[in-house]
């Protein structure tokens, strides 16, 4: 791999594994996960609840330590433990996250503007006037104005809060932004606005997006390629359009069939889901 390739590959994940032990039983949450993300690229990680998507997201941002495997951001491996201020800030600049629940992901005691101001100050923007200007700029980028900046999170709607959370993540200027079910708690029209916003940000900043979701429609809208996870294992990893038009793995077909539409049949889906069972996990990837 050349130096040029390193610069353009924002995120490279190799052989990532994470298992949880409760007593003697071991549950493998993520097994042998590998993918890479180019600058300006968007990868969807799709799966049902318990498929290991959130564990993956938490490993990317350093809230969980992988048992095995490596995460490289712009060619630099993410340290398993972070000690000292410089290491913390470097880690923060590598990957940021937007959480699922906009009602709990902002500090209820602090205004949206002050939250972003705090992130900017931490990351070395010492001049208050410059911070104010940058805060305004970041909020404008996500479509929030002065009124929202001065408001406490509880005075804002779910969509506005999620925009504020995105602005907070962008304030750190990360290489990669992870979105963990970031639009799942929003209603459909607001979802569309936030998804448009994310597409715009991706185009304008060249940031890499990792979009964790159970919702294939959302993934199709934002991502170029998608990775289907089932019980911690990769079932398929292909361009989104191809994956949706011609799903290869039975689990992917099931996920597609599970989206409610006029000829939707919940009974047959739950039957097929049971038939799929744990055996499918072995035959994947």
């Amino acid at each position, binding site marked *: 791999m050349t130096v040029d390739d390193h610069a353009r590959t924002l995120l490279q994940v190799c052989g990532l594994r994470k298992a949880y032990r409760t007593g003697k039983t071991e549950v493998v949450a993520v097994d042998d996960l590998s993918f890479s993300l180019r600058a300006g690229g968007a990868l969807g990680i799709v799966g049902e609840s318990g498929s290991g998507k959130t564990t993956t997201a938490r490993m990317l941002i350093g809230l969980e330590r992988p048992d095995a495997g490596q995460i490289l951001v712009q060619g630099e491996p993410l340290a398993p433990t972070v000690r000292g201020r410089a290491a*913390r800030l470097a880690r923060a600049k590598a990957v*940021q996250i937007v959480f699922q629940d906009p009602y709990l992901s902002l500090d209820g005691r602090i205004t949206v503007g*002050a939250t972003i101001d705090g992130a900017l100050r931490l990351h070395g923007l010492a001049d208050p006037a410059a911070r104010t200007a940058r805060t305004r700029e970041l909020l404008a980028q996500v479509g929030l104005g002065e009124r929202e900046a001065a408001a406490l999170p509880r005075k804002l709607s779910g969509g506005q809060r999620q925009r504020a959370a995105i602005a907070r993540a962008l304030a750190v200027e990360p290489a990669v932004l992870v979105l963990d079910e970031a639009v799942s708690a929003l209603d459909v029209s607001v979802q569309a606005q936030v998804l448009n916003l994310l597409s715009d940000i991706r185009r304008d900043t060249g940031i890499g997006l990792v979009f964790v979701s159970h919702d294939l429609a959302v993934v199709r809208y934002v991502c170029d390629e998608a990775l289907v996870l089932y019980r911690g294992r990769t079932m398929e990893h292909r361009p989104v359009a191809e994956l949706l038009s011609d799903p290869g793995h039975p689990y992917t077909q099931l996920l597609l069939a599970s989206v409610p539409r006029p000829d939707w049949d919940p009974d047959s889906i739950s039957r097929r889901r049971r038939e799929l069972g744990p055996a499918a996990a072995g035959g994947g990837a």
Partner: protein
Amino acid sequence: MSAQMAGVTRKPIAKLRSMGGGWLEKVCLGLLVLFVLVALFAPWLSPQDPTYGELGTGLVGPGADHWLGTDQGGHDTFSALIEGSRTSLAGPLLVVLVSTVAGIAIGLFAAWRGGWVDTVLGRLLDVVFAFPALLVAILAVAVFGKGMTAPVIAMSVAYMPYTARLVRGLAMQEQARPYIAAYRVQGHSALYVAVRRLLPNIGPTVLAQSSVNFGYALLDLAALSFLGLGVQAPTPDWGAMINQSQAAVLRGQPLSAVVPAVAVVVVVVAFNIVGENVGDRLAGRKT
């Protein structure tokens, strides 16, 4: 920036005001404010010197000279009540301050570190829990001598686990919220997030618990003084006043004992009502 800081400090007061509460709570809050003011301005308010006893006028009833009568030694009960509010309130205040600060530090540390640190601290707190505050205080008096210092230190230790356990529970709950994870992911240090961001979010509930503790600490310290182990005469103190009026009660003139007893009951009940109501309302806080 200074405007933001002012906003942060002003907010709890505005929040308390907006919470309002029932008439009972308002009355109790008013009583507490009244007692605090009396304690602050005691030397200017008390009509006579409560340490000056005129043996000729012992156990007189209420009148123009002595509004609430005198005790056996001829000390003016009203003046003693006012001057006594200083020691009677300062003792519990110290207990609550020390136990709250120590409890917050231990509870926050246990919750943040988790794992074996949390387990070990939890067991240690259980051990401290096992000793009743009054017993620890009496032991401290036995070892270090009578007066205020030993009981206040002993009771600070005995009350600390209540705050520590509450803080630990609240912090565990709060820590699970993604906004704390977001602060960490942004690169803030653990200490900054725990003390500057998490603590203010659980602070009001902890303060409510502390105000309940204040009532109990006052009761315990008054009991110690009543037993003759706490504040010593001639320093006026409500518990000591009741102690010195035992003989008066036996002689059928209980007023000089009833007055400080009523003061203790009123302050303890008021602190309990205000503390618990504020705590209840904060428990259902936030949307």
